[in-house]
């Protein structure tokens, strides 16, 4: 059922955890020898910290060094480092679907089949060697003072209908933002032209921001009443005092889950440690740690307030949209961007 509280919770069935599938012993031994693994990630330090701590506790002798970078910066930096012969990341983690597609094409990914693979859902396998670490939903965020909870829409279609009343009070991030592109493309994949119509109706009355930070700040101030396709990471902030002003929802037809993918790189200096690390990230304990960091785990048997089963329970099975790394994304991107921009008056 739909909820109207500040943080929608549902106790969904999380299923049964499958058996542990670790890497083979020789890889593990080699990894211990390598001693460390370097990660480039697009997630924030404080999200990664609990994950890394849990890994290091479980795998003594392997240290994870993590560096937070922007999506594009990460891939460019990797390529520049490889081209200049410097040392570079062993594992990269990003939500940028198009970036990943290019990265895979340029041979940046080590084609490695993780032992977890058989136990992972299909959508978690994004390309050869590329695995979803989490499936982070986008959400709709509202300012309660401007738009009381009982007036808030619960679907994109509702939002589109309300758009003329909320003229200028609807916000979203620009399509150049990878989350927005991911969400939009996934949404359109399911709703096609109807989806476009909805977006166009909203777009005529909405403003765009460069990133989540300014979007949420303006929303809290009351400049915006509603924001959609907002990165799910902000859920962690909407508690206590903030919740007095702001609430969020999983819009039934507008909550795509976007894969945050990880892969071992082809230029990894610590390939074995990288494999151990990736293996653990995909394991049930790894997914549990992901939950503490505020990511959205998807594996069966992982109990988590923010987990995929929770989202599924709220929006309903039939409405679940899970993003892919379909090669079409790269080719269609220019059209999507252009039409989106047109819809939002850019």
């Amino acid at each position, binding site marked *: 059922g739909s909820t109207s509280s500040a943080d929608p919770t549902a106790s969904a069935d999380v299923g049964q955890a499958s058996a542990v599938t670790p890497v083979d012993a020789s890889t593990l031994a080699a990894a211990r020898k390598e001693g460390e693994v370097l990660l480039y990630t697009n997630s924030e330090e404080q999200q990664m910290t609990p994950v890394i701590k849990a890994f290091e506790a479980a795998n003594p002798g392997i240290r994870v060094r993590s560096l937070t970078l922007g999506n*594009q910066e990460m891939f460019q930096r990797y390529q520049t480092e490889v081209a200049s012969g410097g040392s570079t990341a062993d594992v990269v983690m990003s939500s940028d679907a198009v970036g990943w597609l290019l990265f895979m094409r340029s041979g940046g990914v080590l084609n490695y089949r993780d032992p977890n693979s058989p136990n992972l859902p299909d959508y978690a396998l994004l390309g050869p060697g590329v695995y979803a670490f989490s499936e982070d939903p986008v959400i709709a965020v509202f300012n309660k*003072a401007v738009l009381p909870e009982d007036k808030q829409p619960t679907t994109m279609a509702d939002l589109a209908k309300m758009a003329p009343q909320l003229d200028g009070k609807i916000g979203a991030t620009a399509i150049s933002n990878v989350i927005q592109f991911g969400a939009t493309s996934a949404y359109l994949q399911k709703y096609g032209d109807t989806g476009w119509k909805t977006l166009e109706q909203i777009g005529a009355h909405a403003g765009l921001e460069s990133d989540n930070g300014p979007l949420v700040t303006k929303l809290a101030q009351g400049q915006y009443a509603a924001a959609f396709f907002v990165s799910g990471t902000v859920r962690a902030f909407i508690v206590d005092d903030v919740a007095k002003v702001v609430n969020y929802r999983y819009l039934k037809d507008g909550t795509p889950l976007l894969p945050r993918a990880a892969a071992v790189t082809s230029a990894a200096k610590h390939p074995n440690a990288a494999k151990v690390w990736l293996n653990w990230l995909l394991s049930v304990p790894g997914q549990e740690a992901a939950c503490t960091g505020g990511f959205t785990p998807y594996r069966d048997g992982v109990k988590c307030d923010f987990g995929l089963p929770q989202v599924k329970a709220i929006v309903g099975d039939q409405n679940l949209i899970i993003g892919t790394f379909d090669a079409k994304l790269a080719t269609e991107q220019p059209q999507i961007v252009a039409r989106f921009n047109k819809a939002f008056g850019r």
Partner: protein
Amino acid sequence: MTLALPAVRRPSIGWYVVWGSTLVVVVGPVVPILLASLWSTPLYRSGGGFTLANYRNLLTDSAWWGAVGNSALFASLTTVLSVVLGVGAAVLLTRTNVPFRRLLTGVLILPVMLPGLVLIVGWMAMWAPSGYVSSWLSLHTFLAFPVDLYTVPGMALVATTVAAPTVFLFCRGSVLAIDPALEDAARSAGARPLRALVSVTVPLLRPAVLNSALLVFAVSFEVLGLPLILGFSKDITFVSTYLYGHWITAASPDQGLVSAGAMFLLVCVSGLLVLRNRLLGDLARYTAVTGKASARRTVDLGGVRWGVFAVLAGVLAVLVVVPLAGVALSAFTSILTPLVTPWSVLTLDNFSAISGNPIWSDSIVNSLLIAGVGGLLATLAIAVISVVAHRSSFRFRGSLQQAVLWPRMMPGLVTGMAFFWSFAILDPSGAVRASLWGIGLAFAVRSLALGYGVFYPALAAIGLDLDRAARTSGATWWQASVGVALRLAAPAMAACFVLLFVSMLNDADPAVFLVTDRTPVMGLTMLQLAATSTGGAVAAFGVIQIAITLAVLGAGRLFLGVRAHA
């Protein structure tokens, strides 16, 4: 008995060393950018060939020219506003008896110590159309904040908050240096105090004014955070956001186009420099420190001083006090919105979040090291470069003036990229790149322009006779420059250090390609924070930073206390 001088080498050897090393660190990184702008593929891909297509694409793109127009408008507005405020404050707060001038000076300077991002948070919280103070004003009074923050003039106001104190620091040294007898002469010729200041003191500041105008203009041209956060929703593109959009947020990053844009900016700044030198003419016309010394006095403004105080205080209240209060409120509340009274949501969570995260505390330590040690070394380097560029007979001294301004004109990300490539070539081991020195060097080179901006007018004010007297006393060119010119420019050196310290403490963009997990820096940490979360944590970071800066700079004594004279 004649006393012999110790044997020395010719000064020109030193000049060449200074020149050579400056060129290596400044022009070195420009070379990859130039190459990239003339190459058909990004440098990190193999293949490709020579092309002019990047320039053609850039110069035929109407969006580019629109961005140039916006940037130019923004930069001009910022320059005019900050020069008026900065020069006015420098003259009034250092040469006259305006009441509470130390307090006003302190308030004026505070924003310099904050990263631009934090200030934007403060401004948005208070003066945005839905901000705390502007909504309060329109609800409870007939007043309204006349400028929409999300327009070019609004952004210019925000930029002025930082640029004006920079101009102030540029000019302050020159104001201090001016021989009060020159003002006295105007007074006894019949000029009222303000008139004497306007017709004698202010024109003598021309080198400082033109130079700070040049720098503020250049820096505003390159500013990224401001248009990205404030201008985006109104679809206002600046040169920086244009380039950013074609590189970082583009579907297919176009490094060649971005490099061509950077080269375009370099050419622009070189043109501006020529213009500056034209407008100045013979620097000897601004000699304010002569071989005949007079005692220092402040100008008594009489009753006017209270009026001046009121105006300054009003301007500072709007531009500085309210936004800073916004920063403080954001830092100490869980959510700052006009819809909830801040007292009900007071919290220290933002601070505990920072102190709880080791990466953040590491980045504070690293940044302090870079800003402290790097700032000091860079100050010395700039001092030396400035004397060679302006007080020597060195053949290539003109090129030094260009060299120090260039790095600031390139967008920070491009600078970082450029450094990355230079390190890759000059230091294949990667040892420098992976260390704090690498980031420090990139930050320092980027701040060269700021430091030079402080030194140049200070040096212009010092009469050449003073150096000449040292030379005939037996000092080599270097000894005379260090012992006389630089010693008399001591207040400028202090101001330079302050500016470098804060700018290196805050700098972020150039580190994107250089940072490692072992060398996190504050600016970058904050940038990542700002992109994804509400202002609270960023503001808390800002509050911590201002506290650190104040502590390090000795509560502002260091830079307000240094005098050229005993």
